[in-house]
């Protein structure tokens, strides 16, 4: 990867981490949370699989671990796992509709969050929260996908 590409990928991940910390709130007993950092990461792996390989997955996972409140290694392992899945089906994903992509990426985001709560905060593990999380992640995939695609087309190949 060129320096310019590295800067673009990492700055988008950093921006996503900031968004995650800003866009979470509690209404009644339900806690709304987002995982933009994973959505943006998975977009990059999906869009430019030849650029985001195992080394970048480890580094981005470490960055997310370091800047979020998770134990070191949690995001590294999960980002590498999903990076492998996305790489393995990179061409198959090209045939998917937007809705199918949203279901896959929304489900994987909800899976990461479920594991996060299970390992870090088991007292707060709630099926209702995870379900809402799954729905919101699927919805959020659309703005992330179209926003990041525009960003990539404008700056990544410039």
């Amino acid at each position, binding site marked *: 990867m060129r320096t310019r590409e590295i800067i673009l990928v990492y700055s988008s991940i950093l921006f996503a981490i900031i968004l995650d*910390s800003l866009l*979470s*709130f*509690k209404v009644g007993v339900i*806690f709304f*949370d987002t995982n933009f950092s994973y959505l943006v990461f998975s977009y990059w792996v999906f869009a430019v*699989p*030849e650029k985001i*390989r*195992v080394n970048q*997955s*480890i580094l981005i*996972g470490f960055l997310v671990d*370091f*800047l979020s*409140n998770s*134990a*070191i*290694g*949690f*995001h*590294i*392992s*999960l*980002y*590498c*796992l999903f*990076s*492998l899945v996305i*790489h*393995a*089906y*990179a*061409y*198959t994903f090209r045939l998917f509709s937007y809705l199918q992509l949203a279901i896959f990426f929304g489900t994987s985001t909800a899976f990461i969050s479920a594991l996060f709560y299970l*390992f*870090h*905060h088991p*007292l*707060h593990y709630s099926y209702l929260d995870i379900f809402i999380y799954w729905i919101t992640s699927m919805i959020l995939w659309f703005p992330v996908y179209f926003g990041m695609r525009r960003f990539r087309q404008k700056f990544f190949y410039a």
Partner: protein
Amino acid sequence: MANETPRFTSRLPYVIACLFGLTLFFLDITYQTFDPLDRIKINSQNFIKSGLSNLKNSFVSLEINFSDKKILLNENKNLKEQLSILSVIAQQNIFNSKLEDVSAPHRIIVFDTDQYFCCSNHRMFVEKNEKNYQKGFAMNSSGLIGQIIKDHPNSYELILLSDVDHKIPIYNKDFEVYCNAEGSGFERLIICKVFMDLDRESIIGQEFYTSGFGGVFNKDTPVGKAISVTQAEGNEYEIFIEIIANPLSDERVFLFKPT
């Protein structure tokens, strides 16, 4: 026969990377191996937030200097501060502590409210002033909120009463209930486990106070009120106590050395 979908890389590096990540995760969860890294993160985060807050305050004061509301705003600020101090002094009188222990309030630098609402780690970082504390407890105008757990280079880390790792010795005089109440991980809620027969109906609404054991909290500081009781097994009861103080109510906290 259809060809297999081509892949960009082989699977082996990913499997190794996953195992590497899991090893790091296991080491961090079990042995807290990366605690020094966490401290670096906390210190740099506090430093940046404190700097940004100071910068913001100086811009605000610069803006105020040019406006007619300067006197009113300053007066409002002073009154708020005095009210907060008076409230703490009133609480001090309740538990007969020495007034000279009241130092200038400490500004909250970082309080992750996401963590407070969603998760079990309820921590707060306050700026340091001229007084040094090895250990002590923290109050705001609404009451007792927690204790000092770590001394960082530019801040004190407070653990709130509701943090899942926190324990506070409390008692109720009428029912002669003594226990180490544990943080529940939920906002403003602690759990007191007792092994004695209780009248479940009459204990609800009872106030609990610090018992003074442990050497951190002064005796007879109001902590909270019992809101529900459940029988765990045998004669083990869990009393759920709602904490009186709200850590979100003030921007500043008062730190005290135990007397």
